[in-house]
């Protein structure tokens, strides 16, 4: 279990404990945190679990796999801090991670 902070676009923060082995997307969906839609259910086939991760954490995350950037092209306002939260696997290394939600997903 690690603590992850989800920050809505309006600044509202949600800190929840997420089990190792789940994804950051699943942590949000299972805890009813608004702002992450995850329409495709985590198969990297949509871009509705898009989050921004600030540099300090961004560089510590496991690198993007093939295809993630292609999906991010189709996200709402992606930038170089963008990740798909379904592709970030939770582990002890991520304790204290903060992710920022875009204004909207679709």
């Amino acid at each position, binding site marked *: 279990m690690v603590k992850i902070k989800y920050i809505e676009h309006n600044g509202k923060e949600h800190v929840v404990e997420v089990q190792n082995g789940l994804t950051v997307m699943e942590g949000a969906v299972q805890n009813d945190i608004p702002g992450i*839609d995850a*329409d*495709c*259910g985590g*198969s990297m*086939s*949509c*871009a*509705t679990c898009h989050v921004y991760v600030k540099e300090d954490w961004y560089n510590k995350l496991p690198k993007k796999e093939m295809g993630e*950037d*292609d999906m991010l*092209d*189709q996200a*709402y*306002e*992606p*930038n*170089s801090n963008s990740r798909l939260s379904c592709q970030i696997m939770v582990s002890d290394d991520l304790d204290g991670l903060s992710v920022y939600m875009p*204004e909207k997903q*679709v």
Partner: protein
Amino acid sequence: MIKTDAVIVGAGPTGLFCAHQLGIIGLTCEIVDNLDKIGGQCIELYPDKPIYDIPAVPECTGEELTNSLLEQIKPFNFNFHLNDRVQELTNENNNWIVKTTSGKKFQTPNVVIAGGVGSFEPRKFPTKSAEKFDGTAVLYSIKDKTIFKDKSVAIFGGGDSALDWAIELSNTSKVSLIHRRDEFRGAPSSVKKIKELSEKNIINLFTKYSIKDVKGNGSLEEVEIKSEDGESKLLKVDYVLGFFGLIMQLGPIAEWGLNLDKKAIPVNTENFETNKKGIFAIGDICTYPGKLKLILSGFHEGALAARGCFKYARPNEKYRFEFTTASNTIKDRLGVK
């Protein structure tokens, strides 16, 4: 007005198998889908990706699954209404009047919503100012390419649609291609071609830029693009095209008076009927305790919803359960001996 026993909204695997089940029990149906092809997410999102959890099919792609389902319902000759979207549902004397965007009308006692996560729509520009020109100078698909002849066109995107149109339109228009990073996800041959055209100054290529604003009094005059570090450029253009893929929107389904739980429709698990009599929801779009978003669950839900439809389509008949292996009636319907 087309009269039918059921209208199925959505031609994905769940909708297709529900059609099969309706056919097996002797009912008719009409199938409507917003996409221009049959298969839903299986075709639009992952035609080439293998699926490993279809019972008795160790591995198949989305495209193979769709083709097999189509083969399975072939004996029933059901009609598909593609490129069309169910817009409005109204109740008239225990029948639903179903209207589509193209103006088609159906009269039916049953509507089965198998709409996945909603209908696929093009993702639009995030800039508010782009809305003003939506459909005139800001476009997300091309119906008539001749309108771009001798004009300046800014194309946004990094996938095949963006690259193909940039190459095609560069023959007769002044094309700028703008993409948020310097890698493209289009076919390698198209990427190569784009780079050649850019080196020959036939296409203006701007990578690591995205849209900031569109400007114009009455008609579109300029598009402003920005890099991530805040630098911006103005391009004089007549048209702005965006190719960012498709997103799924619940769309008009939200207006039909159905109970909604987030983006899903709650149903009972006996026949997958919603809070409205004669409207059923199956597949990814429905929710109930223990719901799994698996194709196989959609098949089960479709089979039970079809029996639910029977009650309203044949109110004076009693439904008889039969096996396809043993029933001559079913074999007749399938055209097998």
